[in-house]
């Protein structure tokens, strides 16, 4: 975000702040490529099919992106600590079905209570992931692959063939994803607020910066006195809370929730984070970037449909973007390393 010019010798935890002018700082933003791609994509699609930016079209783009934006923001926190959470699709499914059940079990329950309950439920599931990862010391990839199936299995056992439909829920709840303020659907506004809060936390607080330190080098972070276990657990719980929120909002937006809700979502979410400039090995990237990545990927799908491109190409293009993001990341890393070597030798 804001990158200030520091006088020589000032210690800054921020990796992006070297001796650079504000203009070049913007040019080196990790989020820049994805932002440019997004703008270009929207412009080109709009030129071909003007309906794409009609009020209904904009609303659809935002609604499509909302759920993935929230999930990608949570995933970014976890990936930054050099972990990953593959179980988010299953967490979303469980919370979504729980939300449907809650509205049926307790008629007239206030919507805010349902949202909080969903986030709490997500926190519990996230804590299970976090505890397994930090206590059992098994890589998160394996643990969350396991919980992906466990949570899905629970969902199947719990839901069976039962589905809850939009009709089972109060009209005001469904309206969260229908009503707009200044063209923004309400659930999208919720997502934006969430992303801003998390972004401020990640860049502006001590514990937020600790997560980057852990992701850069867990052992060094531990030596330095960062409470690694607690922070990683916290990252997983936060991700769980956000997945829970996404689950509740999913229920508001879509018609049915059941045993298979959210299946396969985890790969979209990880892809969104990576495309948005979050390094898969941790330590760098931002929540804003991940959110933009989510917006870009969901917009591509919508855009290609709007200009009538075959489904096959949509997937291929998403794959190309992931590869491009990794190449850009690699180039950036090499350049940063070289610059650091130069500046350090000069400072001696």
């Amino acid at each position: 975000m804001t990158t200030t010019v520091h006088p020589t010798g000032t210690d800054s935890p921020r990796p992006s702040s070297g001796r650079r002018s504000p203009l070049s700082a913007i040019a080196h933003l990790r989020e820049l490529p994805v932002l440019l791609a997004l703008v270009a994509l929207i412009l080109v699609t709009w030129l071909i099919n003007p309906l794409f930016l009609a009020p209904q079209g904009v609303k659809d783009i935002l609604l499509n992106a909302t759920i993935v934006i929230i999930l990608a923001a949570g995933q970014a926190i976890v990936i930054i600590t050099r972990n990953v959470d593959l179980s988010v699709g299953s967490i979303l499914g469980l919370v979504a079905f729980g939300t449907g059940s809650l509205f049926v079990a307790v008629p007239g329950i206030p919507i805010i209570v349902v949202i909080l309950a969903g986030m709490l439920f997500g926190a519990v599931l996230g804590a299970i992931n976090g505890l397994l990862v930090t206590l059992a010391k098994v890589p998160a990839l394996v643990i969350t692959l396991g919980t992906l199936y466990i949570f899905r299995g629970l969902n199947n056992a719990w839901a069976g063939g039962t589905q809850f439909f939009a009709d089972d829920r109060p009209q005001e709840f469904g309206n969260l994803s229908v009503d707009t303020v200044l063209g923004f659907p309400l659930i999208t506004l919720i997502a934006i607020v969430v992303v801003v809060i998390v972004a401020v936390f990640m860049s502006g607080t001590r514990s937020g910066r600790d997560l980057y330190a852990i992701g850069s080098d867990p052992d060094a972070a531990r030596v330095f006195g960062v409470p690694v276990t607690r922070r990683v657990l916290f990252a997983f719980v936060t991700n769980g809370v956000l997945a829970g929120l996404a689950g509740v909002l999913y229920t508001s937006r879509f018609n049915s929730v059941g045993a298979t809700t959210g299946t396969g979502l985890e790969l979209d979410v990880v892809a969104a984070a990576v495309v948005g400039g979050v390094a898969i090995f941790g330590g760098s990237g931002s929540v804003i970037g991940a959110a933009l990545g989510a917006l870009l990927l969901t917009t591509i799908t919508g855009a290609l449909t709007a200009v009538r491109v075959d489904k096959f190409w949509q997937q291929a293009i998403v794959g190309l973007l992931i590869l491009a993001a990794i190449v850009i990341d690699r180039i950036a890393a090499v350049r940063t390393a070289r610059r650091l070597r130069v500046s350090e030798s000069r400072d001696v």
Partner: protein
Amino acid sequence: MELFANRAKRPGVRRVVSAAALIAAVALVATGCASGGSTGGSSGGGGGGDQTITFIPKQLNNPYTDVVLGGGKDGAKAAGFSKSQVVGPLDASASSQVSFINAETQAGTNVIVIAANDPDAVCSSLKEARDGGAKIVAFDSDTNPKCRDIFISQVVAKDVALIQTKLISEQIGGSGEIAILSATANATNQNEWIKYMEEDLKANYPNIKLVSTVYGDDDDTKSFQEAQGLLQAYPDLKGIISPTTVGIAATARYLSTSEYKGKVALTGLGLPNEMRPFVKDGTVTAFALWDPAQLGYVAAFAGKALADGDITGKKGDKFKAGDLGERTVGEGGTVIVGPPTTFTTDNIDDYDF
């Protein structure tokens, strides 16, 4: 492995935690699978010449399938099977049914009733089952005819197609652009209906233009976004036909929450319980379906007649389907259950499935 070796602090605690986690994981997976894998199994010893029947739907936990299987369970009981059970995959992919068929072959099940996700992918394992003496009844979605004894079809495929083209024509006033939102691109029943719809449109509705056929894979989210994409890509679209219960419900949800509500017509095959709110709020005026429970019911009786050797599945064979009366095997070993029903705001409250 490396992580384990490097961080050897408090090994005892760690090992206990890992073990506990592992046990919990196994237990949870087991419970999940158990209740996902065999719903509606009625107990009863399969010993001594008793006949067993197993239903393999396209996908478990699908509301439509549940109604079909409910009828199947009743039919199996009424027909005199000693044991009926349901096994099947949780995802409707082409190859996911194979392992379940193999397991039934090994268990020596007498009758396997299957709704194929892919007509050919299940063939070789069904052949093994037949070699082992099992009778194969296809229902809902046919396998390759060479791989089964008999096929129980909801309705005449052509009738299903014609009722949908008729409904859409009525709703859009006989002219304009329409699109089809189907399930998976290789579903036998969907493709047969779509083929008949295309023929019917060409022959009888010259002013209606089918502009696109898209696939929502019977996934709520995906169908929703496909519907959205259709309306954006084809601004003059007048109507959508969705011959699948998941697709029509998802499309209805999208239409009812967008500016297209009441402007773009929607019809197809839906479950009355799922579609009720959309019929009431005016998003959908009419859609069709048969009674899914009868499908399972007739399939069970057909299986019994095959297993008893009363019929072989050739044209002209007759068997009694309990309360539904006698059925005759038609062309290609196909048995028709009944005509489709049209649901509108006037009659939808009379149905509960």
